[in-house]
């Protein structure tokens, strides 16, 4: 039996007393894809994840993982999900091997399967040389990798990773991202993070949540296009005149003065095309201002994120 989507969330809510942490959110994660789950701290990411992993029961709505309802078939869901909690809680007095063996037993794996799987996940998470180390003596990065290995141990179809690259050093972060990218296809991954490059690099789709609501979802490119990319133009000339002159060019949606003075710098928003840049250049030289610099600034997901999650700065 195959499902089009491995994670289906329908009007899911969670209230803590009067506080609505998650407010009727709905989304789907198609089988075999990696979806980024983004949001500022306190947006409801972890609460949503805890509902999906059956740690917290929802107050309203439904969610299913691998075709099982998180509330009514919670044991089935827990078998199908590999979960890396945010704080990576581990038994610090155990050795890595012992801990993974313990988790394998909880998942009902037999001895030979456990041995095989532990060797596999240890190799994939580069902890083979640390299997005999006591967890308490490991660095944060190693513990994080043990957590990832633990989540993958029972080869679950669905992986939920809550900030998996926290505590890793830059080269480990790259390795971890490569590892997560490799998981696509065989596994459905919900990746919670607030590191935006991570999402751009590994995720097919992005879901952005703020104040318990989904504020945007789509592919990283779609989201970036919604912002439009920008041009930074540095001109020797009066800022006000430069701004209004450029604003008059058709196809431009907005001009912001970034720096004032004898030499001004403006940010131009609109559909970025070669034609537009030529028009701006022509206009500036026509007015006799000196064009000092013009560069395309590819709208980053970061910009989108800041705009969409912080209503105060949502100028556009």
């Amino acid at each position: 039996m195959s499902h089009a989507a491995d994670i289906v969330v329908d009007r899911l809510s969670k209230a803590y007393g009067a506080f609505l942490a998650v407010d009727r959110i709905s989304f789907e994660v198609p089988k075999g894809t990696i979806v980024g789950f983004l949001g500022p701290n306190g947006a409801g990411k972890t609460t949503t994840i805890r509902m999906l992993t059956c740690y917290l029961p929802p107050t309203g709505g439904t969610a299913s993982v691998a075709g099982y309802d998180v509330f009514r078939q919670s044991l089935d869901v827990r078998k199908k999900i590999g979960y890396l909690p945010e704080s990576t809680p581990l038994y610090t007095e155990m050795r890595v091997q012992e801990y993974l063996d313990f988790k394998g037993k909880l998942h009902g794996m037999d001895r030979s399967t456990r041995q095989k799987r532990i060797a596999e996940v240890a190799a994939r998470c580069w902890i083979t040389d640390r299997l005999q180390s006591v967890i308490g003596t490991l660095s944060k990065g190693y513990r994080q990798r043990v957590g990832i290995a633990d989540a993958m141990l029972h080869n679950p179809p669905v992986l939920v990773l809550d900030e998996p690259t926290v505590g890793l050093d830059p080269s480990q972060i790259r390795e971890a991202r490569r590892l997560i990218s490799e998981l696509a296809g065989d596994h459905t991954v919900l990746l919670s993070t607030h590191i935006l490059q991570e999402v751009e690099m590994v995720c097919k789709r992005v879901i952005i949540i703020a104040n318990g609501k989904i504020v945007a979802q789509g592919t990283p490119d779609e989201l970036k296009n919604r912002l439009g990319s920008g041009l930074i133009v540095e001109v020797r000339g009066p800022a006000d005149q430069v701004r209004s002159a450029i604003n008059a060019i058709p196809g431009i949606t907005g001009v912001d003065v970034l720096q004032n003075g004898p030499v001004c710098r403006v940010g131009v928003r609109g559909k970025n095309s070669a034609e537009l840049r030529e028009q701006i250049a022509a206009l500036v030289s026509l007015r006799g201002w000196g064009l000092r610099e013009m560069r395309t600034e590819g709208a980053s997901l970061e910009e989108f994120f800041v705009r969409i999650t912080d209503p105060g700065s949502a100028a556009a």
Partner: protein
Amino acid sequence: MTIAKREVTSLFFSPIAYIVMFLFLLYMGLVFAGLVFVPGQLTELRRLVDFSRFGLFFIVPLMTMSLFSDEYRSGRIEMLRTSPITEFDLLLGKFIGAMFFFLILLGLTLIHLTLLMIFGHPDYGQTFSCYLGLALMGMMFVSVGLFYSSCTQNQIVAALGSLLTLGFFTFSGGLSELIPGSTKIFEWIHSAMIYLSVGTHLEDFSKGVLDTSHLSYFLGFSAIFLFMTYLVLESRKWR
């Protein structure tokens, strides 16, 4: 039982286990040397058993305080809760783990038994009944400890809660003497406290008498506290 096994192995990595063992052996040793292993006494474990509760009521809380509290505090409860095991499995695992450790403690008193066997001829039926009584009392004490540990993430609070409760069960027989037996209600409280006292029920075991009413006392209270623990575990996720 995976949880139970892990619990026991990890106990031996914690200093608490050795402190508990030390205190237990020290206390039992003192009782043994002072009250049992003296010339003229009957060669029986009876007084050792009778006095054991005064030591165990503060040793067991030390042993059980971390069982759930530590999982809550460290966040590992999230890992356990999202594993494919039920609350019941978790509870049973913790209980069996703690009981196993308790039985190891009891096993240590075999030293005392061996000494008695070298220097005299204890009654084996009575000895068996003594150990049965101790094991049952341990079961009840562990259940109480488990319950308090499931209520809080603070180990000290858990230990104090179980200490007070077990203290009541241990001393209520003695405390009942303080109640003036003048009116009907006071008499009723008096007999209730005697009934609740562990000593009342342990006595027959230590004499070598097996009585189902005492058996049901220990099993009943264990069941009540275990069930309450189960309710706490179940309810925690709704908060």
